[in-house]
């Protein structure tokens, strides 16, 4: 009798350690994948066309590239943790870029001061992104439309709105200082001579310009702040806890008195808002607004979130995971460009990675059961 109990206890212990090992694999594989990718592209870039994949310039290039995926991915993380998905966010990014660009174009033409032009443009882009977010949340939380369909439909509406507003053309003719801001750096290091912030030292020519080391792209800085904020909200606040509860056990959340519908609506609004930030930054980087600015970002952001360990079944996901996932996608895309692979392969690569990540998640769950 006692030996049997002991055996059973021992079996339980091994079971729980193997479970924990599985958890570790789930949590760590993205980091391992990241390292493998970096090593692979470093070696490949060196041997194939003798370029340094890990130079300060290309690292910052990867980071800039990752910001768009990451911003959309942050909101997507919250939505996916609640057990939903938002397929409209990429298009919301485009709409925000168009609206921000339209406002800045008009104010610039009216010769308003640069600070006002930028502020008003940014605020307009952010404000418009709240609308699809709110409607998505209302559809999912109140009307009980499945998130997949509700947000897909909303994506169509948003796309149409953006094209109608822009007349189908990119909104160019932006103020010149917009591009300096969008493609500028926080710090310019001029070795042996000094440091300037936000803009390079004036009157540099040829050789001197090449010596200049720009550090921390503005868009990366802005994105980093947003990442920190969202991380804080999700991991340290009651609202964040409720997001996990809604995705973990909806019934339990209702019974515990959590305002589930309000939580859902807020999550979808935040997803729209993050995409809005992405759209404003896009307009600043490309000094333009285009309805299809985020066309591929919905997919890449979902990929980043799922690679980062979030589960499409809800209840699981972290901001750090999404950060790693975004870097992985950015490195794959950037690395393929450096290796000179036809860019269309990027779609194939990203799509495959999404499917793989979901399979790993399902497999892990099946083992855990």
């Amino acid at each position, binding site marked *: 009798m006692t030996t049997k*109990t002991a055996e*059973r206890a021992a079996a*339980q212990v091994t079971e*729980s350690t193997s*479970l*924990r090992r599985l958890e570790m694999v789930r949590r760590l594989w993205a980091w391992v994948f990241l390292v493998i990718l970096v090593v692979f592209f470093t070696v490949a870039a060196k041997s194939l066309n003798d370029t340094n994949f890990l130079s300060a310039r290309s690292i910052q290039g990867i980071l800039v590239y990752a910001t768009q995926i990451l911003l959309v991915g942050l909101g997507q993380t919250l939505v996916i943790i609640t057990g939903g998905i938002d397929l409209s966010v990429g298009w919301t990014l485009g709409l925000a870029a168009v609206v921000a660009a339209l406002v800045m174009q008009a104010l610039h033409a009216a010769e308003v001061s640069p600070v006002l032009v930028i502020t008003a443009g940014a605020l307009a882009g952010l404000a418009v992104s709240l609308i699809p977010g709110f409607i998505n949340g209302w559809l999912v939380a109140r009307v009980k439309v499945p998130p997949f369909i509700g947000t897909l439909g909303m994506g169509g509406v948003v796309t149409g709105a953006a094209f109608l507003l822009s007349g189908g053309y990119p909104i160019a003719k932006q103020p010149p200082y917009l591009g300096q801001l969008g493609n500028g750096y926080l710090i310019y290091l001029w070795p042996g001579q000094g440091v300037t912030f936000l803009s390079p030292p004036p009157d540099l020519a040829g050789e001197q310009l090449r010596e200049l080391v720009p550090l921390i792209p503005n868009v990366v800085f802005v994105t980093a702040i947003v990442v920190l904020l969202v991380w804080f909200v999700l991991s*340290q*606040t*009651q609202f*964040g*806890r*409720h997001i*996990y*509860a809604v*995705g*973990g*056990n909806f*019934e*339990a*959340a209702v*019974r*515990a*008195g*959590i305002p589930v519908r309000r939580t859902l609506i807020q999550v979808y609004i935040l997803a729209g808002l993050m995409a809005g930030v992405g759209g404003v930054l896009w307009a600043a980087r490309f000094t333009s607004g285009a309805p299809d600015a985020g066309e591929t970002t919905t997919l890449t952001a979902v990929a980043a979130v799922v690679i980062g360990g979030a589960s499409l079944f809800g*209840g*699981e996901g972290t901001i750090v995971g999404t950060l790693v996932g975004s870097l992985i996608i950015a490195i794959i895309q950037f690395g393929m460009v450096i290796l000179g692979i036809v860019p269309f392969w990027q779609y194939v690569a990203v799509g495959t990675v999404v499917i793989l990540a979901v399979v790993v998640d399902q497999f892990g769950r099946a083992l*855990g059961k």
Partner: protein
Amino acid sequence: MEPLLRVTNLTKRFGGLTAVNRANMEVHVGEVVGLVGDNGAGKSTLIKMISGVYQPDEGYIEFDGKRMALQDPHEARAIGIETIYQDLALAENLDVSANIFLGREVRKPFLGHLVQVLDRSTMNNESSAVLNRLDIHIPSLSQQTRNLSGGQRQAVAIARAIYWNARLMIMDEPTAALGVSEQRKVLTLVRTLRDQGVPTIIISHNMQDIFAVADRIVIMRRGFIVGERKAADTTVDEIVSLMVGAEVVHQAGVLPRALETETA
């Protein structure tokens, strides 16, 4: 002594069927009441009226000497009637203390009074205190409840109820999905609750469980409460004959086989 719970002439009809018919029952502090009956006898309907899920067609419920007209389960919980559900109502992706404080998280100010953040250390301390008080052992409070055993999860659900001042527990088949040693732990916990002043109404098909834990057994048949026995003064035989109707047992002349072996 005044009973904590008294139901008088409680009746519930569903169309032409009277699921519970003029039921009278009391629960006192310091006891565990076993509620038994065949399928469809009306046990679940009776406790659903007590926990506010159904509203009685006739009769009334008194809790702590006051008449209650419970409109929904939230009202019942608010006055201290807590039902432990089969699915346990835990968020399995969250850890033990997150579940105990689910929906009622403790917060503390951060950056002056700019924002409120989760006060994890207070919630962890309070959680381990309530678990200790109930003699519940869980290896780590920081693990997701999905990694706990069925009995441990049940214990967490019970600890949560107790922490939030449950005064009467209702458990419907709490041991149904558990292994033998886990069943025993849950029954021990029910007795611990009783000794700390929280009575339990427990529904079970398992006579062993009922006799192991109940002080008093209330028997239902076809919507009526047909009998009430002190567990110490009765036998499985007697309870079963009350459950199925004594005349049926006499006519058939035999008890179901499983019950024969149990009484032997």
